Structures are given as structure tokens and as C-alpha cells.
């Protein structure tokens, strides 16, 4: 059977890694290629590089990072942030990424998902979802709403509806980020994660809120996630990837134990 995946996420700004706390106060914690190699050697199952470079002119820096990462690590990795067009996807995939993730661009133009899936295969296309808890309403029957701009802009789109629509358009995977939980280290949003995971037939990566190993265990079992995204918890050495996997393995969660 498939193993549950542990996926470190590295935020990259102008070629350097950072970790955002609720998307603010970014702290520089190093070189993305070196960090990627470190996590690869520690047993990461996949790595996400998220480009938070503000200006579009600096995108070439990220492409250079991607190609250097591809020569250094031999597991799949994905690239997200600022992916708006088929050309953006193509350049990242050609540089050596296994997958690309689209987020706000897909909300503005859902067809980017189907065009990407058609051109590169659906397994390459990850839908990034930023979600906030809101009051139940006719427009938002689940009480979870899609947001963009780091959570500052509400879209009026229900998160579950969007997940299903995107699956229909050809998304191969969902990276589900709770803006409420992100950066809190209080645990993943379990209700949201299980709601989405039980209602789509593509893998769901849970993101936002990991503060300890129990949280990761929880989201992979009760939250029904296929994978857990981890950031601060490993960047700040609360625990290592090996410790996470050894604990999960001891608790009967199937994870990859040799690398």
C-alpha cells in the first residue's frame, strides 16, 4: 500500500529560503538548494518550493533554483507561487520540477488547470487552496471559503465546491492550506482536511498548523490526508523528519522508512 508522505515546504524569495508566519515577518533561513538536499537526505518524501518573490521580473532566479535543485535531489519536488500561465508551468517543469501548483491564478481562470493537465499530464498539476473558516451561508454551505492574496481577499467560492470543480478540470492533487491554522503551530484544520479528502478522489496534502508530531499523526489519520506539509516544525528543529517518521511508524502509520 501507499505510504503517507511527509513533505517539507520551503518558501523562496529572490532565491533565498524564508518561512512566513501568517505570511508576515519572513525570516531568512538559508539556501533552497542546500535546504532541499538536507531534507532529501533526512528522508523527505517530496519537497515543495514556494516562490514568494514579489516582482515578476525576478522569476528567472526561481528557474535557476529549480534546475540546481533538480541536480541535487532525486525525489519528486513541486514548485508553486506566481504560476499564472502555461508557459510558467512549462519553464518550471523543463527546469526539472515534477509538479507545479496553481492557486489564485486558477480561481481567476479555472481553465489553466485543464490546459495544464492536457499539456503536461494531470499528475503534474497540483491545486493549491488557501481556505478560511467563515459563517455558513447559501454561497458558502460548508463554512469554508476560498481566499487569495495571502488571505486578505475573499472570493465567495466554497472550498469543497472548488475542490470538486478543480478535480473535474484535471487537477491531480490538492495542497490544502488553512489560513486560520497556518503559522499557529496549534495543529492542522482536521475538519476541513477530512471534508475535502473524503469528497475528492485525488490525493490531499494537508498544510498549515503543524506544531508537533501528534498534529501530523492526527491529520494523516482522523484528517484522512494522504500527505502532510511541514515547515516551521522542521525548519526550527522542533523535530527532524526522521523523528516524525519513526514516531508515525511506531504508531502504525505506513511511511517510507529507508532512503
Amino acid at each position, binding site marked *: *500500500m*501507499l*505510504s503517507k*508522505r511527509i513533505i517539507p515546504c520551503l518558501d523562496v524569495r529572490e532565491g533565498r529560503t524564508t518561512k512566513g508566519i501568517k505570511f508576515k515577518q519572513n525570516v531568512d533561513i538559508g539556501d533552497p538548494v542546500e535546504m532541499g538536499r538536507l531534507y*532529501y537526505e533526512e528522508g523527505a*518524501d517530496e519537497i515543495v518550493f514556494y516562490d514568494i518573490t514579489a516582482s515578476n521580473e525576478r522569476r528567472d532566479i526561481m528557474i535557476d533554483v529549480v534546475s540546481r535543485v*533538480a*541536480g541535487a535531489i*532525486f*525525489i*519528486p519536488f513541486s514548485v508553486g507561487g506566481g504560476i499564472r500561465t502555461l508557459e510558467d508551468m512549462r519553464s518550471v517543469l*523543463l527546469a*526539472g520540477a*515534477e509538479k507545479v501548483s496553481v492557486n489564485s491564478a486558477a480561481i481567476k481562470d479555472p481553465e489553466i488547470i485543464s490546459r495544464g493537465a492536457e499539456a503536461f*499530464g*494531470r*499528475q503534474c498539476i497540483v491545486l493549491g487552496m488557501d481556505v478560511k473558516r467563515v459563517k455558513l451561508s447559501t454561497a458558502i454551505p460548508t463554512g469554508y471559503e476560498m481566499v487569495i492574496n495571502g488571505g486578505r481577499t475573499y472570493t465567495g467560492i466554497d472550498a469543497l465546491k472548488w475542490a470538486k470543480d478543480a478535480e473535474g478540470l484535471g487537477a*491531480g*492533487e490538492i495542497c490544502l492550506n488553512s489560513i486560520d491554522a497556518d503559522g499557529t503551530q496549534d495543529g492542522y484544520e482536521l475538519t476541513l482536511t477530512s471534508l475535502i479528502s473524503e469528497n475528492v*478522489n*485525488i*490525493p490531499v496534502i494537508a498544510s498549515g498548523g503543524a506544531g508537533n508530531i501528534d498534529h501530523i499523526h492526527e491529520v494523516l489519520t482522523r484528517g484522512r490526508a*494522504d*500527505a502532510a506539509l511541514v515547515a516551521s516544525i522542521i525548519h526550527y528543529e522542533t523535530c527532524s523528519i526522521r523523528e516524525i517518521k519513526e514516531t508515525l511508524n511506531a504508531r502504525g502509520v505506513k511511511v*517510507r*522508512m*529507508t*532512503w
Partner: protein
Amino acid sequence: MGLMIAIIDYKAGNLRSVERALKKLGFDCRITFDREEILASERVIFPGVGAAGKAMADLRQLGLDGVLKQVFENGKPFLGICIGVQIILERSEEDRVHCLGLIPGEAKAFPVPFMSGDNECLKIPHMGWNGLRLIKKHPVLSGIKCEDEFYFVHSYYPMPASDIHVIGTTEYGIRFPSVIGNRNLIAMQFHLEKSGAPGLRILKNFCHWDGQTC
């Protein structure tokens, strides 16, 4: 002395990642669709992702279908990865296409909906890390431990007509052949170039393989 390793270029698929992995291991290789170069090389890798119909159409258009059959007949070590496991069979359910027929059998689709033993709906494609149970010893798989896992992304799996061509199996709802082989040919469903150290080990073993099975 010709090129050491030819990576078959059929105008699709993730060829660079195999090239990068070989370079990391220190092996000389080239991505090529040149018939002479392929036939003069010491060993051949057919990698990639995509659909079987497209891959076979591209191979035929480049005149490489015959070249690959010749590579097999000549006894040259030949490695297929992912779509490379499908095209060496006689046919594939994907696009209902006729393939090279180097191993009798066909590539089959996972059933939809696909239920596990616990009656859970299994997601397709089969994507992620999974194990490998070795059915028989093979020089290319030497040093691989039973707990090692490999990275899969696929919706079709190889089903050789005879068990003698099955080298390893993997479980995902069903137990399916994930490594198959015939003489100097070995093919695996998973992406060994994306499977960390155990994958690189297989790639390295292949680069030292003389094409003989045990």
C-alpha cells in the same frame, strides 16, 4: 567505442531527470533519437511519462520501434522506466495500441472504481511511495532491501502472459507486476530516478550490468 548509455528521445517524457541521475552517478550518457548512435551505444534506457499510444506513434515516426527491437535482439542491456514498461509488451489497454512485443502480455488499466480490501476507494493514478516484493533474484536489483520504497505515478500496470517474466510485484488494491524482464531487458513501473538512494542504486546496478540474468 561508442556512447556508453543512450537515453531514447521520443520527443516526450521526463528525460532530463534520468540524465541528471546518471550524471550524478558519474556515467556518460546522451539523450538521442539517432539510430546509429543508439545501436552503437553500450546500453539503452527508455524512460518517460505520458500515454502509450503517443509514445508508440512517436517511436514509429522516428523509426525507433525497429531499432529498439534490434537493441533487444543484440543482447544489449536495456532498461525501461514507467511508460517503458508498457511499450515492451505486446499491447496496451491505454489507447488500445500495439507495442513492441519484447515480452508477451499487455498493459492493463486499474479498474474504476477501484476498491481496496477494506472497501475504501483507491485513488487513481497510483501515485506516491510503495514497496517492492522481489519474486526472483536479478543482478540489477541486487542490494535492494524488502523495506525499500519507490516512487510510482501510473494508471496502467504490466501483465506479462507468463510469470517467468515477473521479477517484482507491488501491492495497490491488487498485487501487480512492477518489475518485469526478459533476458537483457528489464523494466520497472516506478521512477527509479525519483526514488532516492534505492532508485539510484538500481540505476547504478544497471550501468554495470552485462545483460545476463544470474
